[in-house]
């Protein structure tokens, strides 16, 4: 079964078409990166798939549940790490994790156990009692992803997970994301091309609300007739070679 299958997914803002009859399939356990310049439609696509905004036309099935008709079911199987760090600043790391677990239905005891597990998995033992606002940007982002994972989602949306982080913090998060590969389906949006190239199983390059090309990084480079992924991206997103 496809983890995600969009069917002519469209979003219009008055006359502007942000996402245009998008037909996309993502396999279970796959890490699929959506690339594109600003305004290409990546974030709007993520917002529709995560039930933050309703499509104007079309639909998408997430493990068989419709984002139009079965929003409640979709919300139970997804989680999101939004573009900016999304943590409750006055709560501690542990409190943030337990809060999200409980909002998704865990009782207090289970939430505590899950928080223990994820704190260990993300090496956050030393900061578990610290308030989120006192953490560095890298640790906040790590917490943000941990909060998305504590609910054991089947599909995880990572919207620009490393935006604004320094190189070391970015590499640390890459290793966190790499550890998730194959276990859950991940949709990643990023402006960092090397991030998409390094982490993704497949990449979709969006421009003007459509996927212009998709495939592995190697396939896209072959398609654009270049050895350089950045060059391939520019040729595909910029020229619209297909």
């Amino acid at each position, binding site marked *: 079964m496809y983890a995600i299958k969009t069917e002519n997914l469209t979003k219009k803002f008055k006359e502007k078409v942000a996402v245009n009859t998008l037909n996309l399939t993502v396999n279970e356990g796959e890490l699929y990166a959506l690339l594109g310049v600003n305004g290409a439609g990546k974030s709007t696509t993520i917002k529709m798939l995560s039930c933050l905004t309703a499509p104007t036309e079309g639909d998408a099935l997430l493990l068989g549940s419709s984002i139009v008709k079965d929003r409640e079911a979709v919300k139970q199987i997804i989680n999101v790490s939004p573009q900016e760090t999304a943590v409750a600043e006055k709560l501690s790391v542990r409190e943030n994790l337990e809060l999200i677990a*409980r909002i998704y239905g865990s009782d207090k005891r289970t939430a505590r156990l899950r928080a223990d597990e994820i704190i260990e998995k993300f090496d956050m033992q030393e900061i578990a009692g610290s308030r989120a606002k006192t953490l560095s940007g890298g640790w906040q982002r790590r917490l943000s992803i941990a909060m998305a994972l504590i609910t054991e989602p089947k599909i995880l949306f990572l919207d620009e997970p490393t935006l604004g982080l320094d190189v070391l913090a970015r590499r640390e998060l890459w290793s966190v994301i790499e550890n998730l590969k194959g276990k859950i389906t991940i949709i990643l949006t990023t402006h960092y091309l090397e991030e998409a190239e390094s982490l993704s199983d497949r990449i979709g390059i969006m421009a003007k609300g459509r996927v212009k090309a998709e495939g592995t990084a190697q396939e896209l480079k072959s398609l654009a007739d270049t050895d350089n992924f950045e060059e391939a991206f520019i040729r595909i997103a910029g020229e619209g070679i297909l």
Partner: protein
Amino acid sequence: MRTLAFASRNTKEIMRDLMTLLFGLGFPLVLMTLLSAINASIPKEAAEATTLFKIQNLAPGISVFGLSFIALFSAMLISKDRTTSFVLRLFTSPLRASEFILGYTLPLLPMSIAQTLICYAAALIFGLEFNANILLAVVVNLPIAIVFISVGFIAGTLLNEKAVGGVCGALLTNLSAWFSNIWFDTALVGGWFESLANALPFAHAVNAARYAVLGSFSEIMPELLPVIVYAVALLAAAIAVFSVKINSKH
């Protein structure tokens, strides 16, 4: 369960903001002290002619007026959440609009009760006679607390942090001051002013609290009923506005 978890988070947010907490709980205390001091300075003949500033009238009035600041807190809480991506995370969660509103309301109700209790405790120091009616007056304040909390939600859902300060901090507190019979009797102004005061819930809430303190039980419900209607309608409106926001088409 989900609602309680979210309410617990909001309680922590409020309790860990010391300035808000001190201001919210201490505001009626400051007002009570100042006005009691002013009342004590008024010449005896004038003080006897003015019943509004007698402690049994003043305390219920200030207890209601103090609650208007709860609207500011609820609006700030929600508008602050809206400016962060944290709320996006919550919008993608299974939390429903009604659970959001309840989760925000539950921590604010105990805060409202605490504020009212502090107000009456201060009034005891300034000469209010202690009896069980005071506890009834605390309960009678709950519908107007829900009115203020709901108005705060609607403002916090629709407006940004800056505008929220204007609407809830200035406009609402002024409305509740002018049209509440706390500081002057609106019947003395008469005309449209009195009609508007009667159409709004503030004066009714103050009257109900005063009757509760005085022990005029049969007169409480006729005054409290319009406040309850406002509370139910505004809470429903807050849920509706929040639902629209969650299910935004844009």
